[in-house]
Structure formats: structure tokens, C-alpha cells
């Protein structure tokens, strides 16, 4: 006596075992597509200071990177502090409405304040006034 009929279930495809895997992979794919945002990666790794500031970043701002080794980066190229004026002024002249031109400093949280001071003095000396420091929201402190 046979208990299992041979032809009642479909012929085994071999791929059927993969369907749970595909489910998970699709789920992850959708998560990363929706939750992440694709953006150009920075020239240098910067771990910004944490702050409670809630002001959103001005995407139009020209970003200057200051990494943990006190190296400056502008437009993905390393630049010396003394050479900063010319490219900043060139960028300012190319922008459409100069009134809203602003600079964003993306400084590492471990950078000593003096390095930031020197950079700020240089930028101010070049004549720019709208400067922001980029931060990221940290864990809530009690």
C-alpha cells in the first residue's frame, strides 16, 4: 500500500528551496533602497562632532573637509591652507545667486580647536561670512 501518491505534488523544480532566500534578499534590497540615501562619498573620512543642533544642512553650500590629521580637502582634492582663497573665490564667482553662497566646514570631532580657528580666520580673511559647521545628531544625554 502506497501512502504518498507520486503525481499529486508538482515536479520538484530545484529552485523552490531558494524562495525564502529571495524573500529575505528582496526585503533587504527594499530596505536599503528606501532607507539609505545615495550620495557621493567624501575624499577623506571625517567623524563629525555630535550636537543637539536640529538645523538641516544647506545642500548648496561648498564643503571644506578638515580631517583628523588636520588635512584640508576641497572638491575631493587636498589643499593647503594658504592656497584656499583662490578656489573659494572662483567658486563664489560661478554661483548663480551670490547672496546665498555659504561654506560648510566638515571637521572631524577630534580636530583641535586651533586648526578650526586657523581655517575660519583664513575663510573670513577671504571675505566669506556665511559659514557653518556640520555636525551629526548624537545620543541623547540625560
Amino acid at each position, binding site marked *: 500500500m502506497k501512502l504518498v501518491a507520486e503525481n499529486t505534488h508538482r515536479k520538484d523544480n530545484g529552485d523552490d528551496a531558494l524562495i525564502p532566500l529571495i524573500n529575505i534578499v528582496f526585503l533587504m534590497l527594499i530596505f536599503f533602497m528606501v532607507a539609505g540615501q545615495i550620495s557621493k562619498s567624501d575624499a577623506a573620512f571625517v567623524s563629525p562632532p555630535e550636537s543637539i543642533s536640529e538645523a538641516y544642512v544647506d545642500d548648496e553650500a561648498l564643503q571644506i573637509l578638515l580631517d583628523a590629521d588636520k588635512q584640508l580637502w576641497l572638491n575631493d582634492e587636498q589643499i593647503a591652507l594658504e592656497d584656499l582663497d583662490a578656489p573659494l573665490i572662483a567658486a563664489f564667482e560661478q554661483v548663480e545667486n551670490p547672496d546665498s553662497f555659504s561654506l560648510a566646514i566638515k571637521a572631524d570631532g577630534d580636530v*583641535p580647536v586651533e586648526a578650526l580657528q586657523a581655517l575660519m580666520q583664513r575663510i573670513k580673511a577671504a571675505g566669506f561670512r556665511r559659514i557653518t559647521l556640520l*555636525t551629526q545628531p548624537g545620543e541623547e544625554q540625560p
Partner: protein
Amino acid sequence: MQLEAFPGKKRRGISLTPLIDVVFILLLFFMLSSNFMHWRQISLSSANQTENKPDEIEIVRVESDAGRVTHDGKTYQLTDLDGLRTLVAAAPEAVYAVEAAPEVKTQTLVSLLDQLHRAGAQKVSMTGVLP
């Protein structure tokens, strides 16, 4: 005469393997290129702070990365929010100008800014340390 494209091969459903290949590649792409950092900003501009001459400027100086803060000869701790509250409560309308000792990290300075805001200071200025 009967023509058969794939003689001997029985038609099956669509094979899932190529689909998985593509989905895996997409997944890898999105995993590696997506960015979960949420950026915020602090304004360092001094232009909008020229309204009136402030009545008083209280200088708060951060001395070390360990969080020692001095103001008017007294020492506070950065984590001691109650102590900072009493500091701010004495003059809530004053402009608190933040200063930093040499070799203090940017993170510590930003933390002091945050703590002064938490303690109730309305105007906190970085222009002392960042001209």
C-alpha cells in the same frame, strides 16, 4: 515535421537563479553606496549677531577634553547640567561666548555649546573662539 527548439528539454517555470543574481548585485550596490548619516549644522556666522550691542558677555572657557569648564573664576563640569543651569540662571539674557584652551577637541567645544543651550542660555556665541 516537428521542429523543437530545445529537443529533449522539458519546459519548466522561469529559473530563479538569474533573478537572484541580479537582485544580489542590486542589494550589494545599495548596501555599499547608501549613506545613513544625518547631517546637521551649526551656524558660525557672526553677521546676524550684530543687532544690538549685548549688555553683558559672559565668557565660558573649556579647559580640557575631560570637561572642565571655567567661568568667572569658578570651575564647572561639562556633564554637570545643574551647575551650568545655576550659571545661566544668574544671567539668562547674556551672550555666552565660548572659549577653548589650546588642544581642546572640536567635539568638546560643540558639547559645551549644546550644554549651554540645554541649561537655558538663549544666545551662545562661538565667535570668541572662531573669529
